[in-house]
């Protein structure tokens, strides 16, 4: 029982970061139809930045938001390149973001080297249902809940959020009422950068990140987003948590090295099972 609680909490914490990265995929894809491959690299940058800023004597609570904000700028830059030319087909944009993620990898090695980095997080642990749980993991879960609530409010209540939703729902009509759809796409990239950065900031204290972590993070996030058909942030949250828990249970009870593959297999199964709906959604 104790074991199970530990696995569940760490699974939910890990799944939260998948969900944050995945929601970044969703936010961008909804508005631009582009899948932003650099989403994982941005999460790595977030983790690295918070380590550097904390090392530069910025206090907790300042360094982390600063890192997230800078990741927003990185996301915006990715958007500028990916949407660079008008009429670039989404598949080509995907390959551009693949290129950008490699550029980010180069920058990460240049700035931080090749070794994994882990910033200090919340110290100590708490007791939950008899199991000892690191407080940092609880922080991850809490921050993710807050981030998703903020995201939901932003999309449903704010004027700009509604304009983003409108651009996703009907780009022609959005243009007609005077919404600059391209600018909305860039905004989506910036937002996705912040979400990815937040994921990196939260996950790095318990799971050190290196330039090499970008691919697993991107794939896990994409897998979570696939649960939401690449359009629903809420279902992405559910998908991320499910993948995180499934991964940790596999790691705990079967074999630690297979958790990523379990996530990937689940993703493939869901993608293929739902492929007819995807075709339908793309046709819209």
């Amino acid at each position, binding site marked *: 029982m104790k074991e199970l609680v530990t696995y569940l909490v760490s699974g939910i914490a890990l799944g939260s970061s998948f969900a944050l990265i995945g929601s970044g995929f969703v936010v961008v894809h909804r508005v631009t139809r582009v899948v932003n491959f650099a989403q994982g690299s941005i999460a790595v940058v977030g983790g690295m930045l918070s380590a550097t800023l904390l090392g530069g004597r910025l206090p907790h609570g300042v360094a982390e938001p600063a890192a997230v904000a800078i990741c927003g700028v990185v996301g915006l830059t990715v958007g500028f390149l990916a949407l660079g030319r008008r009429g670039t087909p989404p598949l080509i944009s995907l390959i551009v973001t693949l290129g950008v993620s490699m550029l980010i990898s180069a920058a990460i090695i240049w700035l931080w080297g090749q070794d994994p980095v882990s910033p200090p997080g919340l110290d100590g642990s708490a007791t939950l249902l008899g199991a000892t749980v690191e407080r940092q993991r609880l922080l991850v879960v809490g921050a993710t809940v807050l981030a998703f609530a903020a995201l939901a409010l932003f999309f449903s209540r704010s*004027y700009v959020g*509604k*304009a983003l*939703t*409108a651009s996703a*729902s*009907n780009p*022609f*009509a*959005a*243009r*007609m*009422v*005077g*919404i600059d759809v391209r600018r909305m796409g860039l905004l989506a990239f910036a937002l996705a950068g912040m979400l990815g950065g937040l994921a990196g900031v939260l996950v790095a204290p318990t799971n050190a990140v290196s330039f090499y972590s970008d691919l697993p993070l991107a794939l896990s996030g994409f897998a979570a987003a696939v649960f939401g058909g690449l359009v629903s942030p809420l279902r992405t949250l559910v998908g991320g948590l499910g993948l995180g828990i499934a991964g940790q249970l596999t790691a705990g009870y079967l074999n630690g090295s297979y958790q990523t593959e379990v996530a990937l297999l689940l993703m493939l199964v869901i993608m293929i099972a739902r492929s007819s709906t995807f075709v339908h959604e793309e046709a819209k």
Partner: protein
Amino acid sequence: MLHIDDLVVRYGSAVAIDGLSLHVEAGEMVALVGPNGAGKSTLINTVTGLLSPASGSVRCEGRVAQVPEGRQMFADMTVEDNLLLGGWSIRNRDLSEVFDLLPDLAGMRRRKAGRLSGGQQQMVAVGRALMARPDLLAIDELSLGLAPLVVAELAGHLRVLNRERGTAVLLVEQEVGLAFDVCARACVLEAGRVVASGPSASVAKSDAVRRAYFGDLGQEEAGQATMTEAVT
């Protein structure tokens, strides 16, 4: 208030609007009729800035808003959100004016636009356009796919709008009778040009309209007829 001079619009190498000139005065209601592919929708989309001219000019003194063909709802958003976004260009978030003119909309404000009937959607589309407080309302196919009673109601709203606010209307319409009934002036478009223009009553009797809607002339003959008319 709307000045279109020698307008040419192309899709790639195909010419959709071919040297068209048209002027609309403030508060005027003008019907645009003509066969499929005459360039009516292209003209509307160029007036509202969605398409750019290859040459010639489109000048409008005041704001233009569009009621597009197919209504183009933000389907998964509420009626209220659809209306609010209509005011995006001038950041107008006050719904009361539109609800005064189209009171039915107030009752469905929380419903998803995609779930509404065609007539209701068309009313949302008109309301959404009005949120931009336009001086000219460009409507592409008001009646398409709607029941006659619904169309009559919508037309009534347009007349009120025009009378009370002085909003000019450019109405593209397949239903010629409706178009001539609502608008005092009418233009007939054919192959990207205006081939007849004037008071609706006299245009209704002209050869151009008969040719466009009632005569089933072959390509060659139609071409000849246009030539003749251009000469005379």
